[in-house]
C-alpha cells in the first residue's frame, strides 16, 4: 500500500466544525437541537423510508409510519446526541438505530400512530414511492442501497439548493446551463457550442458560466456534507470515501 504523504496543522489538531447538525443535536438549547434535527431529518428521511421498504419489506403505509416514528422518537429521546464519530460514520450510526427501532416495533407488534410531532413536516413520500417503483434496487445489499440512496439524496438536495441560490442571486442562466449540460439525462447531444447558440451567448461565456456553476455546486455539496458530520476529520473522511473528493 502506498504510504500517504500527510499534512497537518500543528500536531494534527483541527478545529471542530462550526455548522454541524450532529454537534447541534447535543446542544442543551432546544432551538439549536430542533434546527439540528430538521437538518438530519431533511438529509435522511428519504433513504430511510426506502431502506425500510426494501430491507424490512414494509408496505408503503407501514414504512411512512416507521420513518416518521423513528425520527420523532430520535428527537424526543435525543438519540442522535449519543453518536460517537470515533466509532462509525453518522450514516452507519443512523442506519443501525433505524434497524433497532424497526426491529423493536415489529417485536412489540405496535401499530404506530402517524402524525404527532411530525405533522408539520412535509415529507414527500409519494415521490419516494414513485422512485422505488420506477428504479427498483438491483443487486445491492440493503446497506449498500441505503448508502447509494443517501448519496443520491444528498446530490438531489444540493441541486435543489443550487437552483434556489441561483434564483436568489439573479444567476438563473447559470443554473439553466448547468441543468442542460450536467443534469441532461435525455440522451440529447449537448455541447458548449449548442448551448451558446441556444442561449445566445459566446462559447467562452458558456465555458465561464459552467465553470462557475460547477464550483458553486461543489461548494454546496460540501456544505451539506459538513452539516451532517461531527468533526473536520469525519467530514474529510466522508468527503473522500462517500463523494470521492479531497477537501481542505
Amino acid at each position, binding site marked *: 500500500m502506498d504510504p500517504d504523504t500527510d499534512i497537518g496543522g500543528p500536531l*494534527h489538531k483541527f478545529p471542530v466544525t462550526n455548522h454541524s447538525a450532529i454537534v447541534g443535536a447535543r446542544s442543551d438549547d432546544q432551538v439549536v437541537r430542533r434546527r439540528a434535527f430538521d437538518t438530519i431529518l431533511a438529509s435522511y428521511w428519504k433513504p430511510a423510508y426506502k431502506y425500510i421498504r426494501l430491507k424490512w419489506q414494509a408496505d408503503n403505509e407501514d414504512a411512512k409510519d416507521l420513518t416518521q416514528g423513528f425520527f420523532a422518537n430520535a428527537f424526543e429521546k435525543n438519540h442522535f446526541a449519543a453518536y460517537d464519530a470515533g466509532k462509525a460514520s453518522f450514516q452507519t450510526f443512523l442506519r443501525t438505530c433505524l434497524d433497532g427501532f424497526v426491529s423493536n416495533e415489529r417485536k412489540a407488534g405496535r401499530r404506530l400512530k402517524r402524525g404527532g410531532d411530525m405533522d408539520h413536516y412535509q415529507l414527500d413520500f409519494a415521490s419516494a414511492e414513485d422512485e422505488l417503483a420506477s428504479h427498483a434496487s438491483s443487486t445491492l445489499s440493503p446497506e449498500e442501497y441505503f448508502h447509494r440512496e443517501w448519496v443520491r439524496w444528498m446530490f438531489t438536495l444540493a441541486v435543489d439548493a443550487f437552483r434556489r441560490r441561483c434564483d436568489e442571486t439573479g444567476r438563473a442562466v447559470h443554473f439553466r446551463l448547468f441543468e442542460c449540460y450536467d443534469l441532461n439525462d435525455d440522451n440529447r447531444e449537448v455541447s458548449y457550442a449548442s448551448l451558446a447558440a441556444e442561449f445566445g451567448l459566446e462559447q467562452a461565456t458558456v465555458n465561464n458560466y459552467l465553470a462557475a456553476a460547477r464550483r458553486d455546486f461543489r461548494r454546496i455539496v460540501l456544505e451539506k456534507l459538513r452539516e451532517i458530520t461531527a468533526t473536520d476529520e469525519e467530514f474529510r473522511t466522508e468527503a473522500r470515501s462517500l463523494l*470521492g473528493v479531497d477537501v481542505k
Partner: protein
Amino acid sequence: MKWLSDDRLNHLRSIVGNPDFSSTKYSFVKELGRGGMGTVYLAEDTELDRLVAIKVLNTPEVTDDLRNRMIREAQIIARLEHPGIVPVHDVGTLPDGRIYYAMKFVRGSRLDEYAAQGASLRDRLRKFQAVCDAVAFAHAHGVIHRDLKPQNIMIGSFGEVLVLDWGVAKIKTQMNADEEEGTIIGTQSYMSPEQARGEIDQLDERADVYSLGAVLHFLLKDQSKVSKAADAILLKAMAREKESRYASASELSADIGRLLDSEPVTAYRENALEKVGRWVSKNRFLVLLVLAYLLMRIIFIFTSRP
C-alpha cells in the same frame, strides 16, 4: 425535485471530485493517484498538445501570503534543471483556492514497482545512487524535498531515474518563515525524527538524508546478501540524531559509489580479514588467474619430476 439517474449521479460526483481546470490551459483526463497531501491527475496541455501530470494540493487554510510563497518556491524548484528531477512546468491556483503544479508526465515504474520486479542488488544500488545525486543537486540549490519515498521516485522506460513530487519541498533559507512550529509534513514511515516532531526550524539536508536511508532500507530489506558495509551506510543515513548522519546526500552517494566499487566506505571500519575479503572480491578475476597459474605450476612441478 428531479430524480438523478446513476449516470447523472456519477457525473455530478466527478464534477465535485475533479479539479476545475477551466481557468487554465489544461484539460482533465483522469485521476492518477491520491494521497494525503493531494491528488495527481493526468491532464492535457491544450496549448502544447502534450500530456502532463498535475498535482493539486490539499493545503489547509491557504492564505494569500502562503499562496504567494508556495508559488515563489515552485518557481525556484522549476529552475532545478537536472536529469534526475522531474521538471515543473507550471504552478497556479484553481478557482477553489487550491494550488496545483503541472509536471512532466513520466512513463515508467515507481521505485517500489521496480524493486518488486526483482531487480538485482547492484541495480538497486545504482538507481539509489542516482536518486542521491538528484537530491544532492537540489540541496546544492538550497532545496529540501521533505517527502522522499519509493512512491515518489520513477524509473523511466530507458532506466532513467526521476525524483518526483517537489510539491512540499522547501527553500532552506525560507524554511522558518511561514510554517508554524509543530506542522508535520511528509510520510510517516520515511520521515526523520525531527520532521515527525514537526520541528520545522531543525530541518535541513539531513532530514532528506534520513528519508534516503529509509528508501535504501526499503530496497535492501528483501535482499539476502547485504554486506556489513551496506548495513553501516543504512544505519548512518538513518541515525536518530542528525549530527550522526551523512552531512549531505552527496556524501551518501559517494559511499554508495564506494560500495559498488568494492572500496572501503566511510560508514564502516573494516578489520584486516574483511579488507582482504573485499580485496579478493574486488579482484576476483586476478585472484582466479593467479590461483590458476599457481595450480599449473604445482602440477608442472609434480609431473616434471624424474
